[in-house]
């Protein structure tokens, strides 16, 4: 089982990589064909009751880019299935939830991110243009997990053997996954916004084919507003409850705890900034991206740089 998991992992990365290439292909070839028109329609229709779709009958033979995009989405879904398989076989091999060490933690977090991404994609096909960046981040995170953090299957240390483990880790994984994928529309909003303001230098040129900035900004907010209470529960309530039962103190400023606190404060600042009329939406979104950086720091940095102070993060 453990080997299956490792092989599925390789396949998962390959599938995401292939999806990434196809997304990029669509990006390169794609004209603002159907997707573009659909985007425009959706925007006009926003707010008012949707007008009956009158343009559905445009025959429009799918272009090369269009095909690339469809294949990309299909590959993305295949990648998600393989990813799920990776986590599941790993869990079966270890006879527990696959959340026992840094490697498994990243696999599970990115799984949630990927699932949320596919879910968003199904509800808003317009966002397919973000696929390149979503799959890029999945490939990078999974690749890093395999190269830096790989740990052979093992049982849990007794401290992890608790029902709080399930509450704490599952909520933190789900919220981190959503925060991570929330950074994609956040970054694209900034790029698109810059493009709309007439910037034509490198990252902004990527904004050319990206859907409406306002929609990206709202999506960013909704993902973050959903993940924030979940993270609050997982990291700041369930975590301390477990720490109290296990280590005798609910909060001890261990590096993991420090960075969870920092992420929480930064995301709270994002929600504040967004609610403050005098703060520009671009500024608020930068704060969300800063939050993403702090999450990465907790996911990788704390485990790598501050080793020794806390052993449980790689224990397993």
């Amino acid at each position, binding site marked *: 089982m453990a080997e299956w998991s490792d092989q599925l992992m390789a396949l998962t990365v390959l599938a995401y990589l292939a999806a990434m290439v196809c997304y990029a292909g669509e990006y390169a070839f794609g004209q603002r064909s159907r997707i573009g028109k659909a985007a425009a329609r959706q925007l006009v229709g926003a*707010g008012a009751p949707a007008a009956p779709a009158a343009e559905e009958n445009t025959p429009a033979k799918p272009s090369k880019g269009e095909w690339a995009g469809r294949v990309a989405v299909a590959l993305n879904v295949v990648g998600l299935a393989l990813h799920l398989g990776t986590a599941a076989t790993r869990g079966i091999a270890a006879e527990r939830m696959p959340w026992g060490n840094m490697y498994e933690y990243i696999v599970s977090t990115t799984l949630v991110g990927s699932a949320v991404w596919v879910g968003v994609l199904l509800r808003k096909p317009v966002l397919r243009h973000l696929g390149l960046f979503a799959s890029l981040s999945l490939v990078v995170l999974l690749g890093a997990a395999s190269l830096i953090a790989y740990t052979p299957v093992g049982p849990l240390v007794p401290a992890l053997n608790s029902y709080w483990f399930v509450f704490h880790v599952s909520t933190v994984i789900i919220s981190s996954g959503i925060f991570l994928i929330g950074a994609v529309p956040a970054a694209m909003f900034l790029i698109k916004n810059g493009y709309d303001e007439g910037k034509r230098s490198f990252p902004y040129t990527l904004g050319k084919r990206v859907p409406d900035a306002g929609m990206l900004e709202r999506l960013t907010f909704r993902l973050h507003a959903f993940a924030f209470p979940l993270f609050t529960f997982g990291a700041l309530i369930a975590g301390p409850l477990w720490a109290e*039962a296990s280590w*005798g*103190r609910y909060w001890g400023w261990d590096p993991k705890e420090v960075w969870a606190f920092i992420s929480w404060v930064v995301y709270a600042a994002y929600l*504040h900034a967004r609610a403050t009329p005098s703060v520009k939406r671009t500024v608020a979104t930068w704060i969300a991206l800063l939050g993403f950086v702090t999450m990465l720091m907790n996911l990788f940095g704390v485990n790598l740089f501050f080793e020794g102070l806390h052993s449980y993060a790689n224990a397993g």
Partner: protein
Amino acid sequence: MTVVEDRPATADAPPPRRVNPVWALLRNSWRQLTSMRTALVLLFLLAVAAVPGSIFPQRSVNRENVSEYFTAHPKLAPVIDRLGAFDVYASPWFAAIYLLLFTSLIGCVLPRLRDHARALRSVPPQAPKRMDRLPHHVAASPRPEAPDAAAQAIARGLRRKMFRTRVREEGDGSWTVSAEKGYLKETGNLLFHLALLSVLIGVGFGHWYGWHGNRILVQGQDQGFCSALPQFDEATLGPRLTASDLPKFCLELTDFQSTFQDNGQPKSFGATVEVTEDGGPATTRTFTVNDPLRLDGANINLIGQGYAPVLRYTDKYGVAQTKVVPFLPTDLMMTSEGVAQFPDANVDPATNNRDDKQQVGFEGVFLPTAGTDGSAASRFPALDDPVLYLSAYRGDLGLDVGIPGSVYSLDRDQIDSGRLQKISGDRPQVLRPGQSWTLDDGGRLEFVEVRRLATISLRHDPAQVTMLIGSVLGLMGLMLSLSVHRRRIWFRVLPADDTDTGTGGSVVEAGGLPRTDHAGFGDEFAALTETALARDHDSEEGKS
């Protein structure tokens, strides 16, 4: 977009005659401090200020790492220590940031609390004159009833949907219905911010009135522990506590259970203790890693385990002393280091003179399961084949100097300076339980038995439960704040003045205003107006 209303200008304040500049400055600073922008900046500062605590070792987390840092960076360490880098979360600058933030929070929340209390008692405001200016609008469409009946019916429907409504009669025979919903958003938001405040107060209270300590508890009646301050290996009392405030209880470790995987990974630990509280009868209790022993006024957590060999040394005069020596585990397989020191050995019974040069110490490792190749590393963490590898020393142990040294190794200075000399060979002596070892001077060391030991942490935080309740309430507030949306809907019902609808009919117009960013409002508005207007379903007119 979120609408944050300006606070009502203090219109009723008397016109400023002679503005006291000090007062004006104070008032301005207070306004600045309680603005959202300041809150934002302070949140940022808080995040940034927390970073060094993960880079530098913290005294509150691990004192030994701080000492190591001092040894490794002798120049830098004292400098950054003065800046509070090893006590970030207790440093004045960290405190300054969060105290300012919470002052800002109070200054922000109190007026909002007052405004919200007012808003909860107020009625939804009058409909705007031009409804077509609102973000959502349905143009006039007919309804069969007379205006007042129609307005009442519409209001009833809205009330059923939990809207707060107000029906007003206008002078010109028309009626309006104002409806508003989503007050829970602000309620939740205030609850969340107040909960943050309660958690901060809880942290402070727990710090003042709480205490914690550590202790290595070795199995056996002679190794029991009672909760008097000197009996802790290490203890910290909150500033408002004295030693007499500690709860009174005694513990004796009677049994320790542990199971391991084949690869040596621990599977489970459990400690069984005899507990007496306040001099009452002894009870037997068991606690494990994730399930602490909860006594009245103290929680006891199991945080580690190990072994304590029992050694009896009979000196050259035939005087015997027995020591239970806790060894410090150094690896997964519980290879443990330790030292047995007998400073009172070799006291001549005839003269009763203590000879500093005749003290005896043993240093070495304990292996719960001896290696097959004779190496000094344990093969398995359980007591399968316990063995001690010891070297013997004689001389001055250096215990009287007054510097507390490690309890797991001999004083290196004494050995290096030759005041303490190794008297055994190059290879350490191997001892199994029951075996003994006779030294060159006729002294004899006997390895009596091995006992288990548990490292326990003892703690009491009187604010813990209150804080948990506070944070759960806060979370509920947060969820309300983020999921509820404040919105207003108005209907204006005019008498139908033309003939084709006949007498008594009315014409209804509606408008809607989402007061916070809310994707679903369009659909909700459409559904509400659909039922309220009971319109002809094929008619597309009226859609904007």
